[in-house]
């Protein structure tokens, strides 16, 4: 996706080979069309591309000739046929002969691609951003030439004002984006190369070439320097922003990029666009729901779709609690922490029954639905194109409209039925021995006194001594029968939230697996079997 955008809009020349074509078949030409808005003055001028503008409606649709208050946009088409010769042109149905685009024309789109390993931008080589930044001052060429001469003579590059100024500028940009700066950026001579050229002068940080800095700092410095060379409204392509960065620097870099855009917006300047790919939930969480686009590739046809949320609001809780689920191919939304923790625990046991494959290998993920928001979340995910299912207990009834909406969106809902919540489903299906094991686990987690006290208040006729003993003996002295006792324990467990915690829920999983295995006809077992089957589908 980023490659396509870059090939279409960058001023660079691209060479293409067979593997760039679908199925390596050059009979199918590569065609990339990119429509760009927020056009700069230079692009909109009638001496350049102004008469080829098209209209972008307020409803977000494209029409060939603008009307009313459509935003002026330009559509660039890159075509590569079997000759491998790329051709750039403007799409405009109103003119018979398409307007070819030169590399100078394309440079006006202001595209920047951050490719982390590119040391080119950290030196003053020909066409480098540093050289361009230096050109901002007058007589730059002469000064650069003077710099080379001076470099030969003394190698005291720091004394050359134009280079030192640019280095200081680069340092400021880089620091702004969160690059670690050890001392100060300065121009330095890179030894060990044959001959002296502009590329021999590179940025140094306290004497160490910046190209030897850590990957993250190198990438941030490169991005900062590249971005600063574009006056306004740059289109920035960033591959895997998180690459080489600690979480706090991911957050810092994204926050700064967003702040830059907010500032431009406030000053009514072009904001540009940042296209960023990521596999980091930290980056995703910081980017925010409104910035989210989901790229999904259908196989084997390899048709790739980009989905955007109809409304970002339902996704916000997911972005906050479990952004990582968005990286999955199919998502199971769990209503509460008990269910979530329980399934996360149970999934450890599943590979054994599925040829050793964990659900993650199939791209399936289990996500926190944050209670009542689970159904709106599931609907939003389905809307983004994810196969989505929901797992919930049955103590509350879903509104009829919600049930209909979920059905319409193709979201299966897995629940125990019979009005059972998870605690009831577990306890009612459990044998005496397993109820006892569950109580032992609850005591481990919540403390003997708490659990015993909770139970004693609910069932005063048992007495604390008996409660401390084996559950199998309770029915001997109680007015309640086995079933009623289980219901009472479940009711206390739910009300007192013994298991409503992700970690505790996870610890509960081995016991739940045993309960289900021992009672395969129970609602608990059948529901969990459905969940497991869906995740492995």
């Amino acid at each position, binding site marked *: 996706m980023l490659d396509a955008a870059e090939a279409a809009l960058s001023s660079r020349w691209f060479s293409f080979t067979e593997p760039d074509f679908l199925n390596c078949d050059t009979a199918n030409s590569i065609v990339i069309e990119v429509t760009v808005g927020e056009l700069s003055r230079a*692009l909109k*001028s009638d*001496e350049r591309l*102004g*008469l080829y503008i098209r209209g972008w409606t307020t409803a977000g649709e494209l029409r060939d*000739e*603008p009307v009313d208050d459509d935003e*002026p946009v330009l559509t660039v088409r890159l075509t590569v046929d079997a000759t491998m010769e790329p051709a750039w042109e403007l799409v405009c149905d*109103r*003119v018979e002969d398409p307007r070819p685009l030169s590399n100078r024309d394309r440079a006006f789109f202001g595209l920047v691609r951050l490719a982390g390993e590119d040391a080119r931008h950290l030196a003053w080589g020909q066409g480098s951003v540093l050289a361009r930044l230096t050109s901002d001052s007058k007589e730059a060429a002469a000064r650069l030439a003077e710099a080379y001469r001076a470099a030969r003579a003394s190698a005291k590059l720091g004394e050359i004002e134009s280079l030192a100024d640019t280095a200081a500028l680069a340092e400021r940009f880089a620091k702004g984006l969160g690059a670690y700066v050890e001392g100060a950026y300065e121009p330095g001579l890179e030894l060990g190369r044959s001959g002296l050229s502009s590329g021999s002068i590179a940025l140094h940080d306290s004497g160490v070439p910046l190209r030897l800095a850590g990957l993250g700092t190198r990438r941030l410095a490169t991005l900062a320097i590249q971005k600063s060379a574009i006056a306004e409204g740059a289109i920035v392509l960033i591959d895997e922003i998180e690459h080489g960065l600690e979480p706090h620097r991911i957050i810092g870099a994204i926050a700064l990029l967003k702040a830059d855009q907010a500032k431009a917006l406030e000053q009514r300047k072009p904001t540009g666009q940042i296209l960023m790919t990521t596999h980091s939930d930290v980056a995703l969480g910081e980017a925010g729901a409104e910035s989210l686009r989901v790229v999904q590739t259908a196989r084997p046809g390899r048709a790739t779709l980009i989905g955007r949320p109809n409304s970002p609001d339902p996704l916000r809780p997911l972005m906050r609690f479990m952004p990582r689920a968005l990286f999955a191919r199919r998502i199971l939304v769990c209503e509460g922490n008990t269910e979530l923790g329980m399934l996360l625990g149970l999934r450890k046991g599943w590979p054994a029954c599925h040829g050793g494959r964990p659900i993650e290998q199939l791209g399936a993920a289990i996500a926190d639905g944050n209670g009542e928001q689970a159904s709106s979340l599931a609907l939003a995910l389905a809307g983004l194109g994810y196969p989505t299912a929901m797992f919930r207990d049955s103590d509350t009834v879903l509104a009829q409209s919600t049930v209909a909406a979920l059905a319409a969106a193709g979201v299966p809902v897995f629940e125990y039925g019979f009005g059972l919540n998870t605690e009831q489903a577990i306890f009612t299906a459990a044998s005496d021995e397993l109820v006892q094991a569950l109580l032992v686990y609850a005591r481990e987690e919540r403390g003997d006194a708490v659990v015993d006290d909770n139970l004693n208040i609910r069932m005063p006729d048992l007495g604390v001594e008996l409660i401390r003993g084996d559950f199998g003996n309770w029915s001997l002295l109680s007015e309640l029968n086995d079933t009623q006792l289980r219901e009472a324990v479940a009711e206390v467990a739910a009300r007192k939230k013994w298991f409503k915690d992700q970690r505790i829920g996870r610890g509960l999983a081995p016991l739940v697996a045993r309960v289900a295995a021992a009672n395969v006809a129970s609602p608990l077992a059948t529901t969990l079997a459905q969940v497991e089957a869906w995740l492995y589908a």
Partner: protein
Amino acid sequence: MPNAAELFGLGNAAVVAPAGHGKTEIIANVAAMGRRALILTHTHAGVHAIRSRLKRLGILHAQVAVDTIAGWCMRYAHAFPGVAQPPDGMPQTGAQWNQLYRGATWALRVQAIREVVASSYDRILIDEYQDCHGLQHELAIALSSIVPTLIFGDPMQGIFEFAGATLSWDGEIHPSFPLAGTLETPHRWAGKNPELGQWIAETREKLMRGEAIDLADPRVTYRESDDAFDMGALFEGTDVKEGSFAAIHCNKTICYRLAKAANGGYQAIEEVAANRLREFASAWDRAADGRSRVQAFLALSEDCFHKKTPAGGEAPDPEDSVVQQAMRDLIPDIDEGNGAEAVSQLFSLARKRPQWRLYRNELWRDAERATNEVAAGRAETMTAATLRVRYRMSNSGRKMPKRTVSTPLLLKGLEFDHVVIPDATHFGNERQAQAKLFYVAISRATRTLTIASSQRFVQFTAPDL
């Protein structure tokens, strides 16, 4: 009168520029001040004049776009045909031209197109505003709502009233383009004949008020004459005076007759529409046989040459007879194929006849070029060939003959060292804009102005301004 820098800061405004007061210069200077300016004028000749001035002043090509109003409208209307609904191809009828201007104005209501205009220019300057009609004025108002627009013109040179250029300066123009001032320095006469410039300026004032003009003024040469074809006025001093000459008369037909009477001493120039050329081309294309083709050729030669016939009993000029025979020999070939090859030779032989004097050189030259185009196979028909020739002409600019006879309409915007008005009283017979026509005629002169008239005092109806 504000200077160029002040004009640049004014926003929408109008500058009145009497003839010869350095209008083109100030337009060029204002245009050079911004990032990129658009200069609009009416004719290709005007575009050439402005471009060459910009070049002379060393103003960068990228800094100023120069176009005709029609050309600019064609560009924008065809770039956005959905909203502008332009007529197909080049407009032919008045209604089609009107649609073009209207459509371009409609396009300027679309926000995105307004952004294109705003991004393209930071200043718009419109020249010869007195020649604008209502729809062009509406276009100018639409443009001025996007980019600060300065208009330049002279109410006294508004001689296109017959073509609908009847905007009232006070009533229609100044409400949108407030008067910034009137150019005051008569550059055209500086170092040549400042007294003449002074007389023309005074006469301009009188003409505006509809007052009588005394032609017997030492600053001009007055010839009392009853004869509109007084060759004495045309040729007085041509042997001693240096520079270019123009004789000016409002009537096109009289201009051709004057040219014919002057026996090639003055050349008539052709209108942009080139009706006579087109007439020849369509007669040629219609011709079913060689005979009709020869007729088309002969009819054109009658309109271009003064042909002397030997007086009775006089022996024919032997040299002329030789060329005549050569032409006769070509007549059978004219029926061969498309006949263009033969007629092309006839065109060139006609110039060589000692007894024939060419007085519409431009017409003859264009017709000859058109036949060459057909002969070389670059055009299918004579009509297509004339279009090519005229198109090339309008894009390359015309070279004026040393001595020209023509109308104020065709000579407007040009200047000549010596101007002759063969008959001043005829301006009073013009139905529209008589005072303006007279002003345009006299203000062409830079060194001498000769006015022949049956009356010493002439008076014209006060102009509509």
